């Protein structure tokens, strides 16, 4: 259903290496149906990385944002305790499907296509697309004026669809709105079309940029609820109506500077804000100051516990995943080299399929797909399993190469001594091949360590997740990137050293003769 969703990337960096979807705040209401009445909770999910002003961690590391406040108000109205569940953007809707939480509030646009897949609450915000270009550019009154110009936006947004529907426009999609606006400011791009709240928070304060032209289109946000859960839908709609009627939603949106005539009209309320835009001002203030290096380093200290936690998660997932990959890969290699044809065939099929499909897709299938056939795995198990099953295919090929590299004469000698084939494998061939495969296996472990960043897709907070969290709070992508990269390096180095040490100590007596007999044995050429 992802194609139909509309998501906004707010704020800053999504994962560097990943396709930027649309970061938006998914507020997930979790319906704690099993909880006793007086303790009912509302578990809501969102991806708070770079999602200002929807839902994000502010500079004090506190979760905030206008959607965040709205969902809290709704929960209060419902008499439930709001519980926040973090999920990666790409998995927000899928997580709803497997009951990780009960609802999502994340700037998701209500469209008929999506309405057939999930339930939408009544609108909690109505806005439009805002065009932004360089200061001094003549105003743009319609999108058709943009023909022949390079226009930036975020992937899979309503803005993207609008631009693609306008003949002649050269559309450029960005992972992060910050970069898009930056390119306009420095002249690389003519303009950017994005949701009004994003424009307000990321472009309005830039002296090199200007808002240009009228509101384009209309975007209606709704809370997303799992299909079929109409009881919760009605409960939420009742609470939302109360929050609107009491004026509380007007207060919230006014504080965030988002009370526009558009939304006022939609709710049938006065156009004037009811409160000063204090939250907006403090957001601007927090990001106007360029901290000194010392202050920046001090800022990182604050995140130290988070970094340690993320490192441990990365290490845990990688190590257990690698053990699984080695064990399974080894079995696959034995099956493929020595097994009867059905096993050989099965192992080959597994290896080809796993190597030929992306790890990210495999992870998503394991976590979000398997529950459809009744297999519901915890995020940690799913992450480890995804990495382990994937890398097993690569390990299998390493071992296969290692097994085939052992001269045939070794097995012949074992058989001639009256050992069985299995004994020959176990005591003669496999121990020798182990040394041969150590270097490539070490290599793969380093790869796996880095690929483990994908487990944030299944809601685990690993080192890369920590990077996103810190970078989007401090807006220091470069410094945070260096810091986290250094930690990956530090985690990987000991294993490289250990492998090198093991290799040297194992091969000192062995390497020469193995090579010699390999050279003379000419495997595959039969003696006559």
């Amino acid at each position, binding site marked *: 259903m992802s194609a139909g969703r509309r998501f906004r990337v707010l704020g800053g960096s999504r994962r560097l290496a990943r396709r930027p979807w649309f970061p938006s705040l998914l507020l997930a209401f979790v319906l704690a149906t099993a909880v006793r009445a007086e303790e009912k909770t509302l578990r809501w999910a969102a991806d708070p990385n770079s999602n200002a002003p929807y839902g994000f961690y502010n500079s004090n590391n506190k979760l905030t944002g206008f959607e965040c406040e709205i969902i809290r108000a709704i929960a209060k109205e419902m008499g439930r305790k709001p519980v926040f569940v973090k999920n990666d953007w790409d998995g927000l809707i899928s997580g709803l499907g497997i009951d990780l939480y009960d609802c999502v509030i994340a700037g998701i646009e209500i469209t008929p296509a999506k309405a057939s897949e999930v339930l939408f609450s009544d609108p909690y915000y109505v806005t439009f697309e805002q065009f932004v270009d360089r200061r001094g550019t003549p105003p743009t009154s319609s999108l058709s004026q943009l023909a022949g110009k390079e226009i930036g936006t975020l992937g899979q947004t309503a803005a993207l669809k609008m631009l693609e529907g306008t003949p002649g426009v050269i559309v450029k999609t960005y992972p992060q709105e910050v970069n898009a606006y930056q390119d306009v400011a420095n002249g690389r791009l003519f303009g950017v079309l994005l949701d009004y709240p994003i424009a307000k928070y990321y472009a309005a304060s830039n002296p090199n940029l200007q808002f240009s032209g009228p509101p384009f289109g209309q975007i209606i946000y709704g809370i997303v609820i799992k299909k079929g859960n109409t009881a919760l839908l009605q409960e939420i709609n009742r609470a939302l109506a109360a929050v609107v009627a009491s004026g509380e939603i007007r207060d919230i949106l006014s504080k965030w500077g988002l009370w526009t005539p558009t939304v006022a009209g939609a709710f049938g309320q006065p156009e004037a804000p009811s409160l000063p835009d204090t939250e907006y001002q403090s957001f601007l203030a927090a990001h106007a100051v360029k901290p000194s290096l010392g202050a920046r380093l001090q800022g990182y200290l604050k995140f130290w516990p988070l970094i340690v936690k993320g490192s441990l998660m990365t290490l845990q997932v990688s190590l257990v995943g690698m053990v699984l990959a080695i064990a399974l890969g080894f079995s696959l290699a034995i099956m493929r080299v020595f097994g009867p044809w059905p096993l050989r065939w099965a192992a080959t099929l597994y290896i080809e399929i796993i190597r030929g499909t992306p790890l990210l897709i495999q992870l998503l299938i394991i976590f979000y797909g398997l529950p459809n056939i009744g297999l519901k795995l915890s995020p940690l198990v799913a992450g480890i399993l995804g990495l382990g099953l994937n890398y097993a295919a690569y390990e299998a090929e390493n071992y296969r190469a290692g097994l085939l590299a052992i*001269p045939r*004469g070794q097995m012949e000698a074992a058989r001639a001594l009256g050992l069985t084939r299995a*004994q020959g494998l176990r005591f003669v061939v496999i121990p020798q091949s182990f040394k041969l495969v150590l270097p490539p296996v070490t290599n793969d472990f380093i790869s796996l360590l880095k690929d483990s960043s994908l487990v944030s897709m299944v809601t685990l907070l690993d080192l890369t997740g920590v990077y996103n969290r810190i970078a989007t709070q401090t807006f220091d992508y470069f410094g945070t990137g260096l810091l986290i990269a250094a930690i990956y390096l530090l985690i990987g180095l000991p294993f490289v050293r250990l492998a090198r040490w093991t290799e040297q100590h194992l091969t000192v007596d062995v390497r020469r003769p193995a090579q010699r007999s390999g050279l003379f044995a000419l495997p595959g050429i039969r003696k006559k």
Partner: protein
Amino acid sequence: MEAPLLSVNGLFKSFDETPILQGVSLDVEKGDLVSIIGPSGCGKSTFLRCMNFLEVPDAGRISIAGVTIDCQGLEDAPPKDLSAKAHELRQHVGMVFQQFNLFPHMTVLENIMLAPRVGRNIPADEARSNGLRLLEKVGLEAFAERYPSQMSGGQQQRAAIARALAMNPQVMLYDEPTSALDPELVAEVLSVMKQLDAEGMTQIVVTHEMRFARDASDYIVFMEGGKIVEVSDEDEIFENPKDERTRRFLGRFQ
């Protein structure tokens, strides 16, 4: 009269339609040392490897120390029990390879102890003392803890002989045991084989060492074109070969 310890009858073997062995028969009595000679590609190595089923013959019958395997029609439908039978037969046969094929990741003593420990469940103490005794026999008692890579070719081949002896074989097969050795190392290997002969071991040697064949063999088998051309007394064949082909082959060594 006692049946021969080893008896091969009508052995045939082809690789990819190329006939290698074309009806080879040979009887070897207990205690004999038999040398098999012949030009390259005559099938002598394949013949030797068929004797312990490292190559499975297409047809023929092999009988060693009371274990008989009839290979008729194995090509089409190998019987389920063939590998069990071959396993049983190998328990009585030791083999030494041109390239030694010692296990490079084990010390010499571990090489020798592996098969008794794993294949026969001999207690470690017994396997060890037996291994040390065999190393002493081949003059390598000081090398027990060495790795193969730390030894000369001649020492490695002697260790390989000791390894084969550790399973108490009734027949020893040698596939060109000195061909990979520097000339000055050949003698030490041959003298071990002579010593075993003196102790009554039955040995079959595929070799290019004509001097050894002549000095040590009880008799010599000359093969060409996948057939045994001549079986003869060791002096007889060198001084008065009956067959023209034998004469031609030996003429090159004069």
